[in-house]
């Protein structure tokens, strides 16, 4: 048994060494006509593939047994820590206190990292409404982030409008754009929808890049005003802390709204749509209306986040809103747990904070997250913190009373 597994892993290892040989072991320079052989890399691939294939097969077997257990009802789901409201509330309160105090304790640089972490949390939660709750795969989310950011940058640049005036407008603009995009594509099935949103995202970016007269083209817009505080002059560090609190409050609002949305009438309709559209329509749910709502509710947050982003960096260009950005936001949602807002926070911590603090791994950042996306889908499609649907317990009053 062990020997067989050993030879299987050996076979996989050999296969990968052969497969990756040209790309991994050779590097050519066609101008100077030189070849560089890198045999050491090949050895790494071989050993890595050997170990990973053994783990992979073990994990697949484990997945099968777990699926079988779940199907037969054996291995009843145990009570998880996350299920208890006491735990989540205490944790939430603790996080709240920590994040309230942090900007006074750490450097401007650290605060900046936290600001971008919060921006990603906001984006993740927004995308989660569309992808996680409503089950509509959305690949152009960065476009709405761009709409928010450019709304502030352009209005500020041409008309001198302030942050607080544009903030609500950015959200509304993004929501309107989301609904406008959603209108025609609602008839499409999941994967077509993914492609249309991807195409839309690219169109927005390309227009921003090429409409140089208005948007400054690839070089973007600089000298965007920072948010004002009742006309007070502030130092750079002070503004930074100020923006930190703005984005922190924005995240809180996003989080609370998204959490409340899930158990609301619309939220339940969305989750039902995700599970079965036809059954939903039969139950009298207005499919079009509810989906439009999902798009609008999801993209609005990207608009808000975009305005804050523009105010934070004071400089934006189309390079910040590529498909890559959409992919990062999507992987935050997927790794964290689709439909779960706590999951998004954890996912954003993994994708934004971890690489910042582990610089040594920054080279491997994206490849690891990409691999994690695949592995997550294969072994744990529900994500790190799975979403839970609200459970109702029906208590039979009379039985309880008579049973005393």
């Amino acid at each position: 048994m062990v020997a067989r597994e050993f030879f299987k892993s050996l076979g996989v290892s050999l296969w990968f060494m052969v497969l990756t040989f040209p790309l991994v072991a050779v590097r050519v320079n066609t101008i100077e006509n030189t070849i560089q052989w890198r045999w050491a890399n090949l050895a790494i691939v071989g050993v890595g593939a050997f170990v990973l294939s053994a783990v992979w097969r073990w994990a697949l077997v484990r997945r099968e047994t777990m699926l079988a257990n779940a199907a037969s009802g054996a291995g009843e789901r145990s009570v998880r820590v996350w299920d208890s409201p006491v735990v989540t509330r205490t944790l939430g309160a603790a996080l709240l206190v920590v994040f309230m105090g942090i900007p006074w304790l750490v450097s401007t640089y650290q605060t900046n990292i936290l600001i971008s972490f919060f921006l990603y949390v906001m984006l993740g939660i927004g995308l989660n409404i569309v992808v996680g709750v409503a089950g509509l795969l959305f690949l152009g989310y960065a476009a709405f982030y761009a709409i928010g950011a450019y709304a502030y940058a352009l209005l500020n640049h041409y008309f001198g409008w302030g942050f607080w005036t544009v903030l609500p407008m950015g959200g509304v603009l993004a929501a309107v754009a989301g609904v406008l995009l959603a209108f025609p594509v609602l008839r499409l099935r999941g994967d077509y929808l993914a492609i249309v949103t991807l195409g839309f995202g690219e169109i927005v970016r390309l227009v921003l890049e090429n409409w140089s007269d208005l948007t400054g083209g690839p070089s973007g817009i600089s000298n965007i005003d920072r948010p004002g505080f009742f006309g007070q002059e502030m130092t750079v560090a002070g503004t930074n802390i100020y923006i930190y609190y703005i984005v922190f409050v924005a995240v809180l609002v996003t989080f609370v709204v998204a959490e409340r949305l899930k158990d609301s009438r619309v939220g339940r309709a969305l989750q039902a749509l995700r599970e079965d559209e036809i059954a939903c329509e039969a139950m009298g749910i207005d499919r079009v209306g509810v989906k439009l709502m999902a798009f609008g509710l999801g993209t609005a947050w990207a608009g808000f986040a975009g305005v804050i982003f523009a105010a934070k960096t004071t400089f934006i260009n189309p390079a910040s809103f590529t498909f890559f950005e959409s992919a990062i936001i999507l992987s935050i949602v997927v790794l964290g747990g689709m439909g779960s807002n706590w999951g998004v926070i954890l996912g954003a911590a993994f994708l934004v904070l971890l690489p910042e603090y582990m610089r040594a791994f920054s080279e491997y950042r994206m490849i690891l997250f990409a691999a994690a996306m695949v592995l997550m889908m294969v072994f744990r499609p529900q994500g790190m913190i799975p979403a839970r649907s609200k459970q109702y317990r029906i208590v039979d009053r009379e039985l309880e009373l008579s049973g005393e």
Partner: protein
Amino acid sequence: MDVQYFFELFLSGLTRGSIYALIAIGYTMVYGIIELINFAHGEIYMIGAFTGLIVAGILGTMGFPLPAILVLAVLVSMIYCAGYGYTIEKIAYKPLRQAGRLSPLISAIGMSLFLQNYVILVQTSDFVPFPSLIPEFAFLEPIAHIFASSDFLIVVVSAVLMAGLTLFIKYTKMGKAMRATAQNRKMAMLLGIDADRVISVTFIIGSALAAVGGVLIASHVGMVNFAIGFLAGIKAFTAAVLGGIGSLPGAMLGGLFLGLSESFGAGYISSDYEDVFAFSLLVIFLIFRPSGIMGKAKVEKV
């Protein structure tokens, strides 16, 4: 209207279109059989170009003649890409066969990002010059300024490959099994068709064709980079949708249609918005005629 300019655009559109068609075949075949948009397909094309570059580099220092290098680079890169396609299917898609629609799609996006970063890691993130492997044909001399021999070769090779594939699908046993699996996988399995094998072969063929496209276009353009697969992939997918996804002649027609409309759009309207043009076509088609030019509207039964 300037006739020569028109022909110039037409021919460059033809070259582009043939490459789009070659890549689109991979999308459409995979979609036809397992209803999955294989996002990693564009990356296979990119890996094909890189493998071609490496083979050409090695053979170049050994002093092989140009035509031999070209043929060997294409062949080796086809074999390797077939291997990549096969492996990707086994890792990222096969374990998810039973798992709804969203999971394989996300897995595919993950795979695509993985391959891009893999190439960044083991090769480079910069643009790399690609040697010009395609020899100059003497008989094309008079029109070389509008239709270079690389254009000619791309169009001819694509046409030959597509004709070969059509015959393969139509007349071989495997081709028949593929068509049966595409129509109804369960039924095909009941009749003794090994669906897993059919799916593997689909990935292998699609990837090999993408590799040909990768090497030829890289030699034509003279540059490769890890990101070339993304744009080429979306455009090829657009071509597949235009033609009607799942339909082989549709993918070829869609590829040509997209290549020509891009070329004319860039030539007569504005070259800045060339890519916008392709994406808009995609969006418009998906909205108004999601079944494409050749596809049939699908009725979903409950």
